[in-house]
């Protein structure tokens, strides 16, 4: 069996490269210095809309309630917050495991998706991503790169095909303040 002997690129800023890749796939990325700072942002998101948070660090999570919802129940979801496990610098993709999304429909059925990622979990390329991911640990997982999109009409790019219309990635980066 062939051996994968690709040497991953070195000597560049993983965070910068990842952030550029996220923007290139049509998403927004915001650096945040800590989870506490993110809590403020989360609170500002308000409560008028149907928002589902799956991160215990941001507030109470009703796991069994979220798990039990079907497409009918979730069709009005405006915003969903999910913890990402690994970010890939070469393409802006983020691995979401089933346990972090709680309900497989959530990253897709919501209008707007927010992913929280620790800057320390960024890897160079897909080879490193797979070496750090046990793809069959959970029943389902996805590498997600940007919002849903299509170019099926005359190759014109349209954001918001069937999945989320927008993606914001909050990158928790302790070094962020110092760098400023």
């Amino acid at each position, binding site marked *: 069996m062939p051996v994968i002997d690709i040497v991953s*690129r070195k000597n560049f800023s993983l965070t910068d490269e990842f952030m550029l890749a996220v923007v290139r796939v049509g998403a927004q990325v915001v650096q945040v210095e800590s989870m506490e700072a993110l809590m403020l942002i989360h609170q500002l998101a308000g409560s008028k809309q149907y928002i589902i948070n799956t991160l215990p660090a941001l507030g109470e999570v009703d796991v069994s309630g979220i798990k039990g919802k079907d497409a009918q129940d979730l069709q009005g979801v405006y915003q969903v917050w999910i913890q990402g496990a690994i970010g890939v610098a070469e393409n802006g993709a983020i691995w979401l495991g089933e346990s972090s999304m709680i309900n497989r429909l959530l990253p897709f059925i919501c209008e707007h998706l927010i992913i929280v990622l620790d800057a320390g979990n960024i890897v160079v390329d897909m080879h490193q991503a797979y*070496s750090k991911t046990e793809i069959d640990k959970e029943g389902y997982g996805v590498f997600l790169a940007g919002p849903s999109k299509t170019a099926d009409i005359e190759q014109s790019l349209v954001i918001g095909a069937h*999945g989320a219309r927008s993606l914001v990635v909050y990158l928790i980066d302790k070094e962020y303040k110092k760098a400023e």
Partner: protein
Amino acid sequence: MHDTKDHAELSVEFNKNESRVDWHDETLWFVRKKRDIAVSLVPEWEQLRELGSQIKNHTLSNLDQYLEEFEKRAIANGITVHWAADAEEHNAKMLAIMQSNNVSRIVKSKSMLTEECNLNEHLLKSGIEVIDTDLGERIVQLRKEHPSHIVLPAIHLKKEDVSDTFFEHLQTEQHNYDPQYLTEAARINLRSHFIQSELAITGVNFAVAETGGFVVCTNEGNADMGAHAAKVHVAVMGIEKIIPKAEHLGVFLRLLTRSATGQPITTYSSHFHRPRPGQQMHIIIVDNGRTKQLGRPDFRSSLKCIRCAACFNTCPVYRRSGGHSYHSAIAGPIGSILNPNLDMKANADLPFASTLCGSCSNVCPVKIDIHQQLWKWRQVLAEEGYVSGSKKAGMKGMAYILSHPTVYRVAGKMARWVLTYFSSIVKIKSLNPWYRQREMPAAPENSFRQWYLKNKQ
């Protein structure tokens, strides 16, 4: 799907609208250029291609072992595994799953295999309508057409066509040609289908033997919307979709989308390993001629294909003849070496729909020697008697002339004489098909040989 017209005749129809052909040609070339840019950003690209090719070769040589390993692990994961020898069996098993679950609301994301098996038409006979959910596929389904490209199903259409189709079927505003507006209309309409769906069909991009799961890649999110909403998920795959290990996904996901559209990865690369609680997950593994192709030494490597369509986008013949001219589920150069295996007689024209320029082989992410196989198919087809008499006689005549120098010189002289003094004869289109889309060149005074003999000092 196949009518009696061959590729050349169907191309004539496609070429009637010159500005549309130009648009088709330029748009696909633009996609090819995006591929080039994406590839240039990966310094190890050639190494990746070689790895992709080697992994696929290794897998094809041990296909039985990896398929059985996959089956064992998939069953352990709670997935029901079905085997189908051909399209008919695939369709029958699909119908049986639907009937045993008593479901009628069905959505399907992109699967070229279901196109190959004519699944939608087959199910309609039993009164079951499948809703295609990929935007391009939905457009062609509403128009009662078939995809003309395996990655860009509606690339043969303009936004005006889509607008007319949606006006008729989705009650959109007439003459609103805005792709954003039209896509939004499809989103709203298909959402209601997703929410109500009872069974979702998806294709499979890669099935991993060591983990017993499979990966589906989409940009729109339609495979996930379907699979996660419905209580039954049926994934269908050809036997060649298997790869041995999870780490191999790293190679193929890096190759696939860069080759297809120039994206670094699709928006969603979804890894399915177990059904969610209360859900049924099935996988139908289909042969449909693949083992036969595996047994043809000259053509077996065509099974390495990962369906990126880079060979379509770069092909000068595909870009100017359109996907429907190939009268098959898989058009383009790769289709032209896969389809004769399925039906030699019906697809004998396809290996000739090529200039043998080799661009397809150059862009192929898994290094399939596509143009060599096109050339080899021509010989097989001639031997088996599937080449028309006039083409055969022409080739034989040409071979005779080219292997007899004296005859060649006389023939050249005659040709120059006819071109100079009786050019009206060669401009009779029924006698000279070459002239139909081209001008005849002016005949030179001397042959190269005459010029060379005179000037060699």
